[in-house]
């Protein structure tokens, strides 16, 4: 389609998407503020589908919360896409695939959130994977992207195998697809059945959520997709998977044995560590962000685990805290991660590279993007004053409460250890994002593309700033968020969060105080230290001239981490020095560092290899000789006759 009309289509579609999101948000807010009793009851809408496979939808507080996330994400990323797509349009790349799949993807996510029975869920779940796959595939010119999309789609399908199995198994046991029917029937099931179903759900959904070790696809897909899509996938789609954990495991499969909680806690901790470790040694703008998504999912997993444990130790305070932490962090991560992906998108469009080793000094050239990104990294590293911290704050607290109120047992050691893990993760994430921001935005440009970089289209830096503004707002006015979080909590039968606001409110109101005080102090300091003259000079470099190559590289900045965790990261380095004859004068030095995805190489590749081997042997059956085929026939006849008697 021509340039002109594609422009109009771009604006039309994205505008529509934004308007829809806005309308949805406003409508929802109004209905919610009007003390929505209807939310608790929920409404159902049947559609004729024959053979008892009917599509049913339901809306309750839990759904409303995630719908809020979805709508917010949709609005923001659509707004961003409005600017981002312009580049494709200038390259005369057809926008149709993007626009159509964009809408269908969003629609299917709505379907997943609203689904009230297994079949509807499966249907929309598959479609969600399908359309996101097409979106990842949008930049198919690069074979690497095609590979990523392929890996993504296949892994989600393998996960869906387990989901389908579990759902059909439940269907066979209860004779119905409806979630309520399952919940009713669960007490009648045996423990082993329950555990099997739980495991199936855990792996199936965990793959989509990006739990380690089912996370292989996530870095590929999220980095291959166009940035608005990455924002949507990281910010929203992953959360949809987590929503299903609550819907299917917490609400449907019921409390379950204690080890479920431990599993969540363990896998969560593992994901957090592995995710952030891999992130810290990446030098690819978007891969790094993708890995950090895995980390945050891990944190959310820890929160879920804490909630499950609290439930089985019926410690309602810890459970409330855990859930508040969970939902709070969900919102915050959505905001910050989409913000960062938008920033990355701007950089990529300005420099056409994702490799941080070629960036640098962008803050001077794209100041507004840079400012947004700065807010983003403070938030994502879970540092005060921004919201990222307060979520973890409550998570810490819930873990502490869980432990303190526990009669006895080794759990009293392991739970606090997870606090230690979180601390380690926090430190690592600081390192990671200092690298992400510092290397690409600070210092001097490492390549000509970085030097020539220009600030992005206004929409593209205004949107991140809006997101940042929202993040700040959420800290300044936490009670609003609490009111929102109250909706799902009321569904999860964990009592009213405002009920314990006496205990909970204070720290969260503290968040606004903290922010204000910090700004106040900073301002005071600035005012007080405003004396003296400034002079701009060259950086001191032992007297020598300062070339870009003298800067610390992205790899170098986090090299200590890489060295310390060589085993976990599967890192290989190969240094080659060319000494001119003597061993004193070094002519050239080549350094090559490689990272092997440990899980990928230790589990997935062997599995695939085995599959290929097997099928290559099966193919030998068709050897091309008709005599052989006749032999098959004869043998079949005889076998059937013998067995059939």
């Amino acid at each position, binding site marked *: 389609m021509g340039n002109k009309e594609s422009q109009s289509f771009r604006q039309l579609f994205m505008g529509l998407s934004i308007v829809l999101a806005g309308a949805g948000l406003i409508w929802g807010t109004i209905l919610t503020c009007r003390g929505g009793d209807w939310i608790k009851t929920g409404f159902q809408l049947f559609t004729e589908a024959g053979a008892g496979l009917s599509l049913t939808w339901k809306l309750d507080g839990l759904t409303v919360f995630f719908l809020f996330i979805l709508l917010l994400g949709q609005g923001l990323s659509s707004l961003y896409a409005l600017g981002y797509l312009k580049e494709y349009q200038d390259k005369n790349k057809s926008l149709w695939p993007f626009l159509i799949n964009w809408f269908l993807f969003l629609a299917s996510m709505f379907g997943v959130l609203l689904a009230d029975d297994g079949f509807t869920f499966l249907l929309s779940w598959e479609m969600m994977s399908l359309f996101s796959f097409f979106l990842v595939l949008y930049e198919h010119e690069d074979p690497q992207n095609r590979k990523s999309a392929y890996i993504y789609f296949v892994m989600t399908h393998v996960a869906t195998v387990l989901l389908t199995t579990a759902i059909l198994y439940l269907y066979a046991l209860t004779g119905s697809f409806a979630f309520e029917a399952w919940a009713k029937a669960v007490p009648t099931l045996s423990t082993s059945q329950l555990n099997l179903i739980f495991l199936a759900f855990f792996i199936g959904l965990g793959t989509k959520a990006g739990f380690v070790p089912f996370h292989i696809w996530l870095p590929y897909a999220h980095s291959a997709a166009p940035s608005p899509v990455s924002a949507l996938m990281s910010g929203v789609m992953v959360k949809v998977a987590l929503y299903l954990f609550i819907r299917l495991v917490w609400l449907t499969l019921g409390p379950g044995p204690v080890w479920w909680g431990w599993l969540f806690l363990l896998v969560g901790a593992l994901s957090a560590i592995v995710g952030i470790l891999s992130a810290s040694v990446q030098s690819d703008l978007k891969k790094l962000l993708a890995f950090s998504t895995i980390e945050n999912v891990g944190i959310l997993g820890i929160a879920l685990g804490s909630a499950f444990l609290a439930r089985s130790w019926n410690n309602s305070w810890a459970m409330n805290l855990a859930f508040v932490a969970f939902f709070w962090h969900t919102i915050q991560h959505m905001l910050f991660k989409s913000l960062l992906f938008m920033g990355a998108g701007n950089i990529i469009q300005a420099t056409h590279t994702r490799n941080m080793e070629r960036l640098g000094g962008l*803050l001077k050239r794209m100041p507004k993007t840079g400012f947004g990104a700065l807010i983003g990294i403070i938030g994502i590293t879970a540092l005060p004053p921004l919201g990222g911290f307060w979520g973890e704050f409550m998570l810490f607290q819930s873990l502490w409460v869980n432990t303190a109120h526990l009669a*006895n047992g080794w759990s009293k050691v392991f739970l606090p*250890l997870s606090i230690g893990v979180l601390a380690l993760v926090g430190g690592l994430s*600081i390192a990671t994002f200092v690298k992400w921001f510092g290397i690409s935005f600070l*210092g001097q440009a490492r390549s000509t593309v970085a030097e020539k970089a220009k600030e992005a289209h206004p929409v593209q830096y205004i949107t991140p700033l809006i997101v940042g503004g929202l993040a700040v707002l959420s800290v300044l006015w936490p009670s609003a968020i609490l009111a929102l979080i109250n909706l799902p909590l009321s569904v999860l039968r964990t009592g009213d969060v405002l009920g314990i606001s006496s205990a909970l409110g204070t720290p969260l109101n503290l968040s606004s105080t903290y922010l204000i005080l910090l700004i106040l102090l900073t301002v005071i300091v600035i005012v007080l230290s405003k004396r*003296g003259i400034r002079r701009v000079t060259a*950086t001191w470099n032992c007297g020598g001239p300062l070339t*870009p190559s003298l800067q610390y590289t992205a790899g170098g900045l986090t090299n*200590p981490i890489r060295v310390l965790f060589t085993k976990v990261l599967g890192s290989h380095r190969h240094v080659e020095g060319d000494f001119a004859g003597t061993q004193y004068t070094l002519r050239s030095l080549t350094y090559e560092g490689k990272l092997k995805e440990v899980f990928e190489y230790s589990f997935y590749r062997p599995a695939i290899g085995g599959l290929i081997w097997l099928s290559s042997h099966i193919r030998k059956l068709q050897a091309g000789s008709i005599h052989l085929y006749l032999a098959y026939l004869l043998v079949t006849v005889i076998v059937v006759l013998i067995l059939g008697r």
Partner: protein
Amino acid sequence: MDEIFMILTRLLMGIGHLALIVVAAPLVQGLIKKSKAFWQMRQGPPILQPYRDLRKLLKKEELVSEHASWIFLLAPRIVLAGTLMAGLVIPGAWGWAPFSVWGDLFLFGASLGLVRLFLTLAGLEGAGTFGGMGSSRELFIGLLTEPALLLGLIVLAFITEATSLQGIMVGLQSVSPLDISKILALIALGMVSIAEMGRIPMDNPDTHLELTMIHEGMLLEYSGPSLALLNFAEQIKQLLLLVLLAQIIWPSGLISFSDGLLGTLWALGFIGVKVAALGFFFATVESLFVKRRLFRAPHYLATGTSSAILALISLWIIRGQI
């Protein structure tokens, strides 16, 4: 009416708390320098020297690298402010902290994290080699200290069943000074704070030999007022850690108005003595050991973390809950 009065007193006390920290910080620095000099058989600079240095730096002209952006100038301010924010949760001379809600011990570590973030960013601003080197090492050591710090504090929280530092201090009064888990936690915190204060064996505050320095490396590009602020912030951080340790070793509980002026002054003197003693102790440590190379840091800090974990286990074992 009395509500407003309460708020006002809170505010005033808070300001007083900060003021005390601000005033005392350089003094402690001078004291430590002095005691190091004592071990090195030197005269050493006068105790008030740090004040003079700060004043001089604040007057001086400031050089800014051509590659630096606005963050270069913003960083020192935020670093100082963040350090002060960390100060708000540390119970001061009167065993009272402006911020004392449950969970504020996490706030302490987090504020220091914020400080670290901006410091390291500032280190990258200069586009030079040493700044990057400093940031890289600071980040490395930082991520290793965090768990030990948090776990140590958590153990104390479990001992006293409170998660606000003030509550912990109050609770610790009733705990015997020789409580095994407390001592183990203390060891952990001590090792952590050595690393945090950037002292031997982790880092050498006095050196400017490029290849060994960490903290100084990040400050290399700074001069004039900004440098003053950064140094000042470092001194404050040091003071805070010392106070924290001191309060844990020998907690001084809440002093209410009822104790009157005398009691207040007594508390002030008491904490002064404790901090001075600790400072002297660390100076001694610094004089006895040498700086380790970077990749020995993990072992050192792992020791800290493991002692914190031991503290935890021992706690439950003693309580007979395992």
